[in-house]
């Protein structure tokens, strides 16, 4: 370099990394050195030329792949992505939803809601509290302390059992107690016991069916959306029940109307993906039909055993891989600062063949 000036210093100047004295030095030199002035201009040009290479969104399959790779070794070989796109997913979806809806039906939800109001607790808030306690107990179940290779599915409840939330059943009762304690702390003491076993469902909860050739990708899009907004994610989908596959197919979010619209748009922009809005009521009808169609198949597979309970257990093992994703894609804990009041939205993922 002919002028002999420290070009590193020039670079530092360009990047705003000089000390005050250095800056004076560089500026003084620049005033009288066309070569360095040219170098500086070139650096600007180069930055502009590099602009098209700036940050790209990572494919969400990275996160999935990482979670798969760091999972404790299990005998299950099929990945979440694998089964999600298989035809079996549709069957699981149907069974899972039926389970939820069935619980709803048997739950004394109206009286529950009424009692909430009597207690002066806004319904959505009390729901969220319950969610909270429940998601914590979910969390405990997928705690990494679970022995690797343990064949017993940890999170599959017998579907039709009416039992209090946050109680017993799983072998880590310790953390469930914790959930109970929290609940006791937060909820009014006189709360009727029935509420715990019930699944109070707000009739207006919108359900968005996401039909995608690549379910994992669609789901990843939801996750990305949440991550971008820094919504804190917690596992569990309490409105819909607790079985493993239900959690794997449903994402339950608290979104403002604006957020929901944005998210819908984003999902719809994915390749081979469409969304349709429906309601729990309609979904229920659709599934009842589908289920009656699928039931004989189910029974044939499960032999003489009580079909539903066993199907749940068998599949839970298979689905554990998917469960791991719950931490990323479960419910949502709101940022307290958010102003617009969020509402509950349920997303259902359904695999459809790609158009190719």
């Amino acid at each position, binding site marked *: 370099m002919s002028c002999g000036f420290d070009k*590193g210093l020039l670079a530092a100047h360009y*990047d705003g990394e000089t000390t005050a004295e250095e800056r004076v030095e560089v500026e003084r030199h620049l005033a009288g050195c066309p070569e360095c002035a040219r*170098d500086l201009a070139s650096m600007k040009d180069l930055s502009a030329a590099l602009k098209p*290479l700036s940050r790209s*969104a*990572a494919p969400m399959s990275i996160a999935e792949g990482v979670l798969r790779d760091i999972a404790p070794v299990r005998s299950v070989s099929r990945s979440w992505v694998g089964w999600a796109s298989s035809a079996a997913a549709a069957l699981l979806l149907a069974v899972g939803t039926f389970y939820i809806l069935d619980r709803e039906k048997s739950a004394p939800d109206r009286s529950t809601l009424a009692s909430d109001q009597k207690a002066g607790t806004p319904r959505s808030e009390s729901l969220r509290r319950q969610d909270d306690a429940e998601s914590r107990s979910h969390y405990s179940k997928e705690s990494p302390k679970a022995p690797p290779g343990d064949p017993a599915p940890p999170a599959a409840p017998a579907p039709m059992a009416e039992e209090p939330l946050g109680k017993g059943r799983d072998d880590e009762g310790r953390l469930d107690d914790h959930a109970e304690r929290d609940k006791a702390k937060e909820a009014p003491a006189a709360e009727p016991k029935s509420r715990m076993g019930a699944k109070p469902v707000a009739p207006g909860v919108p359900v968005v069916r996401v039909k995608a050739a690549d379910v994992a990708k669609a789901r990843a899009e939801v996750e990305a959306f949440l991550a971008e907004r820094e919504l*804190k994610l917690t596992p569990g989908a309490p409105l819909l029940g607790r079985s493993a596959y239900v959690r794997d197919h449903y994402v339950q979010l608290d979104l403002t109307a604006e957020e929901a619209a944005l998210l819908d748009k984003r999902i719809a922009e994915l390749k081979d993906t469409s969304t349709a809005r429906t309601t729990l009521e309609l979904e229920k009808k659709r599934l009842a039909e589908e289920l009656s169609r699928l039931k004989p198949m189910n029974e044939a597979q499960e032999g003489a055993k009580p079909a539903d309970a066993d199907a749940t257990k068998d599949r839970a093992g298979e689905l554990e891989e998917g469960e791991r994703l719950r931490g990323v894609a479960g419910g949502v804990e709101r940022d307290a600062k958010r102003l617009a009041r969020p509402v509950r939205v349920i997303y259902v993922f359904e695999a459809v063949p790609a158009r190719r």
Partner: protein
Amino acid sequence: MSPPEVPGDRDLIERARRGDRDAFGMLVVRHQDRIYTAVLRFCGDEEDARDIAQRAFVNAWRRLDSFKGDSAFSTWMYRIAFNESVSFRREGGRRRVVPLQGRDGEAGPEPADDRRPGDRLEVEESRRQVQEALNQLDPEERKILILKELEDRSYDEIAEILEIPKGTVRSRLFRARDALREKLRVLLKSAEPGSVESRPRAGGK
């Protein structure tokens, strides 16, 4: 008991160290864009970049205990990711001829682009050219350019990531820029003779 706010990296790392895979998953989701971008620009291939980024995170999970709390998680991750990129290449990787070009939109939404849609092709083409020029640099030059120009890391961070003295960051950056400019000039010249590149050639030796 429940964390009231969005957990910070530090918090997530602590949880991950205790074996909480979900916490680590959140870290991955939070950092994957920058790590993926850095790796993508370093290796120039989307599929390789995805593999490498994934391996880097898995590696990080295994080595969480060696993470010193005095640097940022991203700093540490960049280092792991670059190392992974280099060894990936050394192992022969999975080289294919297909360069960039958003094979099937896998890279997701593009960075904000305020130009008219008609200019998209142009952007795509210049992206390809710049990447090609970048590919021709030596790995150390490529790394430092990625960190400064694309990731906008400070000299201090760059020094830490690349494990070189801060003074070296300055001089190497200047050299790397100069080298890239030269590669780009040659490329553009051979692509469309007599157009575009009318910039003065700096540092004229």
